[in-house]
């Protein structure tokens, strides 16, 4: 019965899924606001200046330029530009509802953790068993590259306790064709009904694989994110 219910959920979800482009956020100069909203602009400025005044790393997601930028004290450190960006809010919630206005206002999210978590293994050397280097310059152990040391998944979610899930997808992981599309919708539907992933808001960024991997590996702990949505 449970399997049947799940199947129904997946089939219903797959049938109901609209084209991804319908949820895409437009980017580029063409989408720059014709009539600025002073309330949102002022709130964005205040939120950003508050974060910039603190001695810590934080991310700013700007839907208008489809960029995710890492800052420290107001200085931009690194920018990731998404090829695709999709945003959504739960409309018929099983849990808490999600208000669109609340989602659109500039908002600071704290305590973000990536799932799956990057695995960082430490090598331990004991001085009693250490050996001098080879005089010829040969090395017996070459450390792995960052990509080898911390392999990045094709998809990961930066999840915030207040209900935001920021899904990052490596462009190479995107599959095309009907079967792949149905599979993708089914996977997203399953992600939606899992009790441990009931995000109220979701952003999906598609980045080049190398950039997605670099973001995954370079995320600071306990991520703070400012969302600036259209």
């Amino acid at each position, binding site marked *: 019965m449970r399997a049947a219910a799940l199947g129904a959920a997946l089939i219903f979800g797959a049938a109901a899924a609209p084209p991804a482009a319908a949820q895409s956020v437009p980017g580029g100069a063409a989408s720059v606001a014709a009539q600025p909203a002073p309330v949102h602009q002022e709130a964005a400025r205040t939120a950003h*200046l508050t974060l910039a005044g603190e001695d810590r790393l934080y991310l700013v997601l700007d839907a208008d330029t489809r960029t995710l930028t890492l800052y420290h004290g107001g200085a931009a450190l690194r920018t990731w530009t998404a090829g695709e960006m999709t945003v959504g809010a739960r409309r018929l919630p099983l849990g808490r509802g999600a208000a669109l206005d609340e989602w659109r206002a500039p908002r600071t999210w704290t305590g973000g953790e990536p799932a799956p978590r990057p695995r960082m293994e430490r090598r331990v050397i004991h001085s009693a068993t250490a050996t001098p280097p080879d005089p010829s310059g040969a090395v017996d152990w070459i450390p792995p590259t960052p990509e080898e040391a911390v392999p990045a998944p094709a998809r990961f979610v930066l999840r915030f306790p207040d209900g935001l899930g920021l899904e990052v997808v490596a462009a190479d992981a995107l599959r095309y064709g009907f079967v792949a599309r149905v599979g993708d919708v089914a996977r997203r539907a399953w992600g939606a009904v899992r009790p441990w992933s009931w995000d109220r808001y979701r952003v999906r960024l598609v980045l080049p694989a190398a950039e997605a991997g670099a973001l995954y590996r370079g995320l600071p702990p306990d991520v703070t994110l400012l969302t600036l949505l259209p």
Partner: protein
Amino acid sequence: MAALAAPAGATGARSRGRARGVTLAGLALALCLGSASWVLGVPMEDVASEGGTAPDPASPKALRSLGARGAYVVIDRTNNRLWLRNADGVVFEAPVSTGSNTVLVESGGEGRTWTFETPRGRFPVLRERARPVWVKPDWAFLEEGRPVPTSFAERVEKGALGEWALDLGDGYMIHGTLYERLIGRPVTHGCVRVGRDDLRRLVAAVGPGTPVYIF
């Protein structure tokens, strides 16, 4: 009594079964609705056609007063990359080597432990040193299984840090290396190693007081 109880029990079981079925059906419907609502999401309208509500990030002028003025250095310690940036963007990018994250445990003696990690944070360049000399700390001997020398002269090593060193404090530096083939891999004791040509370019662009952001 037993004969009467049996049909009553069977009816109860059927009733409980129906109730369970209704509950599961309700759960399935709820799951369907939940799934559908999430998959449908909320289409975001075109900003321009809506009249526009795109917020401006904090004004560059205001941010500049808080952030770095002029050139600054950014180091991604996990991906082993360095950028020289200014307010206009990236000036140049280079591969580097950062901390190996190795832990060295002193066997016997004081039982000290070192973690060879490049620290996160903001560090101003304290000074530039040409042809720097490395004064090897205790761990440099212990990690090679050698005894810690008692004389200062035995600690001094020339050439290991390349042509230049930018001192960030607490023993951390951005410097050159003899092992350029390992650039891009995490091999250091916490310092940031840069290739010779990139280091020359970097030193030409920065100086004491230049902020270095490590993340």
